[in-house]
């Protein structure tokens, strides 16, 4: 005889279990964790470089940066004096909670105000994996096309902040900034949207304020 057994569980139950553990650890340590996601080349690493430069003295930050191969990004980011670790996935197109747990080994979260996770460059797969972060942040550069939120709704839907990057290039590319914002709003009416340029500094103050507001919300420092 056959028997239909209702299972009613998340497919990524094991990842979700580890993500819940991570979220509890981050909350206990008052560490703000943000997960940066975008296509390859949207400027995640560059944004992090500028962000680490602009962080006020006394803010303790660290970075986990994911790539399929090479430790090039870790080398770039280590120049700013904050702890940085490369996660090399060896072909996997996203970071998962297990990789985060493993690479936090030996770090004292109590000493960290903010942990940046730079995901593998990919607008699709990282959206399915909870890493225990407080916020997913999606980057969309103005050289990519304003229809991206409609083509990749999952990640735009799940992000708390949408950063439109490389805005200094707007005069040179046929990117309709208003339309991009409208498309993002269609998928996610609640997310914050900021335009930033690491080249001319536009929007960087607002981005740093967005972060600092959340750092002070999780910590009691």
């Amino acid at each position, binding site marked *: 005889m056959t028997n239909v057994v209702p299972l009613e569980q998340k*497919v990524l139950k094991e990842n979700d279990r580890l993500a819940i553990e991570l979220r509890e650890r981050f909350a206990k340590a008052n560490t703000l964790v943000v997960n940066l996601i975008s296509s390859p080349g949207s400027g995640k690493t560059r944004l992090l470089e500028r962000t680490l430069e602009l962080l006020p003295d006394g803010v303790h930050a660290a970075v986990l940066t994911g790539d399929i191969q090479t430790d090039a990004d870790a080398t770039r980011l280590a120049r700013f004096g904050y702890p940085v670790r490369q996660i090399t996935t060896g072909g996997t197109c996203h970071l998962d909670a297990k990789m985060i747990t493993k690479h936090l080994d030996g770090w004292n979260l109590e000493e960290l105000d903010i942990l940046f996770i730079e995901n593998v460059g990919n607008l699709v797969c990282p959206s399915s994996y909870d890493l225990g972060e407080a916020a997913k942040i999606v980057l969309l550069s103005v050289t990519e096309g304003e229809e991206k939120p409609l083509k990749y709704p999952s990640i735009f839907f799940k992000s708390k902040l949408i950063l439109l990057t490389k805005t200094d290039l707007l005069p040179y590319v046929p990117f309709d900034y208003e339309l991009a914002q409208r498309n993002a709003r269609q998928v996610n009416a609640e997310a914050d949207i900021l335009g930033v340029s690491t080249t001319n500094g536009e929007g960087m103050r607002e981005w740093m304020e967005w972060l600092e507001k959340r750092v002070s919300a999780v910590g009691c420092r």
Partner: protein
Amino acid sequence: MHEVGIAASVLDAIRTELNRRPGARAIAVGLRIGELSGVEPSSLRFGFEALVSGSELEPLRLDVEYLPRVQHCLDCDARFHADRYTLACPHCDSLRGECISGDELDISYIELAEEHA
């Protein structure tokens, strides 16, 4: 393309369930996949079939229920399918709404053949 990994997680869940039920064999598994889940059903099916083929679980049927994004309007209480991501309520045009369905990635059931002594 993370659907092979997703398919592997589904098979892990089935094996865990079979371990708890000696003598049972899995015939089918049912998944709920929302359009906002980031998972493409046809890629998932491809990965699923590749992993099942030649394994102790063969043959195993995959049933997928694909779910659209459903919005709940906070102004007039209507529930509607957010077609092409247009979030405005078709009844009152309000943009104030919450997403109540569409990001599922769940195993809803396993169909088993069980031997009874």
